[in-house]
């Protein structure tokens, strides 16, 4: 029942928002998202980390085809639900800072998107998963398209086509898997699209080999890993700041989560055949994203490439198939979500004050903005993976996992930390320090309401850095389960 409430509460709020205008709309959107976060926290406390699926909800959806409306939470999905419900109120708060046309529609789309995201993380039926996977795409397309920058038309079209083509391939793969299943117990339908039915499939290595790419296409585009990434920098740059936060903070995790839940245990032979190639692509992405980030002069674009580089490491961690690596992925998903949202928020705060994101135009901002500088630095250092921060724990575990998988790959992947120190510190130096610019004297510091967004983010950065175990123990049984299904 709890899962159903979690899923439909944002949707109900989004529908209400279509009829409400003005300040009441803000209150409703924020209130609903906070209530949602409260529910997720309650779920986390009620949850026992035993490796079983909790809060099961299972109804026949299309009974003639054996498709069920099956929701549930295990340790892995619970953490992502927590991340989503934690970030959405902050993203809404950051949206309040802007004067958008039709603000209530904007908030409604954000909440609608939350339903899609939560559905993806909670679905235990292949077609329900695919359904929510696409549901999450529609609002973000309109958010990025209708409120985006000048080049939005071409950019969002590219984004949409890339992701939908990827997910159609995944759907084709799912249909094939579905047709291989037998009937579920007590069902009249000939096949079943339950996750458990997919897990018990015994497919030949040759089938798994091509199915791997059909299903992985959707996840690879969403993350994105090299060479499926070309939509990402443009879209992150052109989308309005809250949409960029949704894309990078949460939507990206759909790809990683999907790989862990719907690819590794379903096609273990395909994974062992192609895993090394994917790891190599991920490592190429790490280096490629980092090198391009060094040359960027647009603040948002730089963060976009930095995100590309970091997600490469997460993908490599997923395919390392080691417990330590997968636990690293889990903690890094949380840390990256917090970091990247914080970074985009700071970039947005600077842009709102100065009217530009062009790095050479900025400089010497620190003097007037001590608080902004500190917040920026914390987010940045966590992204660079400095000890004490969440980024450190995540990247350390990830690198340990990838090193176990293959020492050489681990060594190259380790460059991500050095590279990110180079481009991020250099960016900080040119934006905040350095010679004075036109804005050095006029810029104002963060306001109280902006701190309201950054303080929770910073708190979580340190929490993740100091007490990672409070999250790791939730995901541990789920990760062990996962590895036993893959056969490791």
């Amino acid at each position, binding site marked *: 029942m709890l899962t159903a409430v979690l899923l439909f509460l944002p949707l109900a709020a989004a529908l209400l928002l279509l009829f409400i205008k003005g300040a009441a709309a803000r209150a409703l959107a924020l209130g609903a998202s906070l209530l949602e976060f409260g529910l997720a926290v309650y779920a986390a406390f009620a949850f026992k980390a035993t490796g079983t699926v909790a809060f099961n909800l299972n109804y026949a959806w299309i009974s003639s085809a054996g498709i069920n409306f099956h929701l549930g939470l295990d340790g892995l999905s619970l953490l992502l639900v927590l991340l989503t419900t934690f970030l959405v109120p902050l993203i809404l708060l950051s949206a309040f800072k802007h004067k958008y046309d039709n603000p209530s529609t904007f908030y409604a789309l954000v909440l609608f998107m939350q339903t899609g995201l939560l559905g993806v993380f909670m679905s235990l039926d292949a077609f329900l998963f695919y359904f929510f996977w696409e549901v999450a795409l*529609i609002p973000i397309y309109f958010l990025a398209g209708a409120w985006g920058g000048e080049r939005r038309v071409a950019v969002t079209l590219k984004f949409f086509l890339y992701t939908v083509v990827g997910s159609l391939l995944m759907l084709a793969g799912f249909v094939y898997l579905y047709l291989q299943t037998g009937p579920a117990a007590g069902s009249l339908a000939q096949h079943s699209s339950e996750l458990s039915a997919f897990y018990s499939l015994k497919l030949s290595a040759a089938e798994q080999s091509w199915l791997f790419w059909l299903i992985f296409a959707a996840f690879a585009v969403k993350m994105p890993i090299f060479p499926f990434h070309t939509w990402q920098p443009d879209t992150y740059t052109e989308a309005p700041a809250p949409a960029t936060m949704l894309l990078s903070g949460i939507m990206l995790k759909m790809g990683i989560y999907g790989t862990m839940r719907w690819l590794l245990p379903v096609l273990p032979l395909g994974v062992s055949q192609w895993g090394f190639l994917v790891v190599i692509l991920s490592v190429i992405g790490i280096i490629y994203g980092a090198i391009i980030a060094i040359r960027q002069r647009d603040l948002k674009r730089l963060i976009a490439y930095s995100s590309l580089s970091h997600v490469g490491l997460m993908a490599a961690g997923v395919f390392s198939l080691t417990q330590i690596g997968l636990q690293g992925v889990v903690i890094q998903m949380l840390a990256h979500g917090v970091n990247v949202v914080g970074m985009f928020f700071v970039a947005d705060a600077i842009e709102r004050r100065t009217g530009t994101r062009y790095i050479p135009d900025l400089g010497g901002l620190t003097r007037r903005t001590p608080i902004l500088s500190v917040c920026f630095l914390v987010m940045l250092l966590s992204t660079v993976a400095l000890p004490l921060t969440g980024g450190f724990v995540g990247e350390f575990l990830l690198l340990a996992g990838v090193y176990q998988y293959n020492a050489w790959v681990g060594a190259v992947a380790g460059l991500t930390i050095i590279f990110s120190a180079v481009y991020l510190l250099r960016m900080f130096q040119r934006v905040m320090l350095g010679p004075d610019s036109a804005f050095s004297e006029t810029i104002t510091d963060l306001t109280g309401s902006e701190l309201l967004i950054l303080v929770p983010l910073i708190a979580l950065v340190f929490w993740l850095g100091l007490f990672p175990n409070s999250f790791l123990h939730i995901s541990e049984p789920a990760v062990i389960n996962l590895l036993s299904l893959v056969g490791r």
Partner: protein
Amino acid sequence: MTSIILLSIFGILNLFMGFMRSNKVLLPGAMLLLLAVFGANLADWNVVHAPYFNNMLVVDNYTVAFTGIVVLTTIVLLPFSRSYVVAGETNLAEYYALLLFSLVGAVMMIGYNHLIMLFVGIEILSISMYVLAGSSKRDSRSNEAALKYFLMGAFATGILLFGIALLYGATGTFVLSDLAGAVAAPENASLQPMLYIGILMMIIGIGFKVSAAPFHFWTPDVYEGTPTFFTAFMSTVVKTAGFAAFLKLLAVALPGAQGFWLPTIQAMCALTLLLGNVGAAVQTSTKRMLAYSSVSHAGYLLIGLVASRGNLTGDAASGIFFYSLAYSIATIAAFGVLKLVADHRQRDDYAALNGLGKTNPLLAFSMTVAMLSLAGIPLTGGFFGKFFLLAAAAGQGYIGLVVFAVIMSMVGLYYYLRPLIAMYLRPAEEGATPVPVDGIQTATLALLALLSIVLGIVPGFLSGIL
């Protein structure tokens, strides 16, 4: 059967209502009459009737289901004829009467059990449509459309009739179930050339009516020239009835000749998907895009025919039913919005839709749902329509065809997004005023969007009913 009788009586009634010269009464009157037909039709669900007229017509669940689609489609289409009412169109009663008569033809095409009945149904439907295509008498494009449609249509009907004659010559019967036995009978082996040419000619004739490639070439020009209100009818009712007839012909009369028609339909299907989607992608006019898109949807429905493998019940038949319903709902909404916008802004290219999201949020929303449904994006009925058809085909082992259809639906995404881009991402022209929409049109568009979404969220109640 009651629906055929009611539709005929109401059609004549409508003609007489024309004497009253009160267009205001006509529209709600016609809608109410059709609602009565819809109800009478539903009352036949799960009721067993003996075949009518010496086994010429059967009313079973199959007939009721597809009749339901065509009647419902016409009901929700009617409100978009408001501009005729406002303009004081003198022939409105005749238009409605012709629509009702063509519905009689559609129902006969769906319920036929005898090839002559099929022919009569197709002719009743087509002749009304030839007239309606040219109903905009002073518009040369409408005249052109009517002439083209008539010449091509008459030719295609000739081929169909020739096919029926050859089939009769080879088997000695018109009744579907007898045909099935005669086609499969080994003693007719010597007649095979005649039989196969007959089947091929029938496929060509019906393929023309449902605009399946390579017999689709008339579609863009005729759709474009025909007044939008009637284009919407053509691309939904005619197509639905055509496919219901097509499936029945192949499944009931010709399962014995599968080895012959399956490859033929497969080839037509691939070609239709290719030409429809690629053709739609290069259009600049929304109306022409919708015309090509209707060709491409004929392609998806043909997949259902392939997957049915000669079964009138089961996954594929239910899939065709669901797809036709979802497609009809979305298409009526798309043409309805297009008609309102084109009437007001005097153009029908993509740019006509610019900024509609600002000036008319409801129209834009309705168009959005329609486009997403036609593109087959989840949350809309179109997704489950495609899903049921493709899953049925994949279940029968037609993996190559399914993969091709999926690739083609990716092309579809490109052109279905273009109206959305125009409506939401491009600003309206200077001084653009909101498109006037009256209450009943608003309600209809909202209902259509709601129906599309309901079919996309809880498809269970209509899936697998056949």
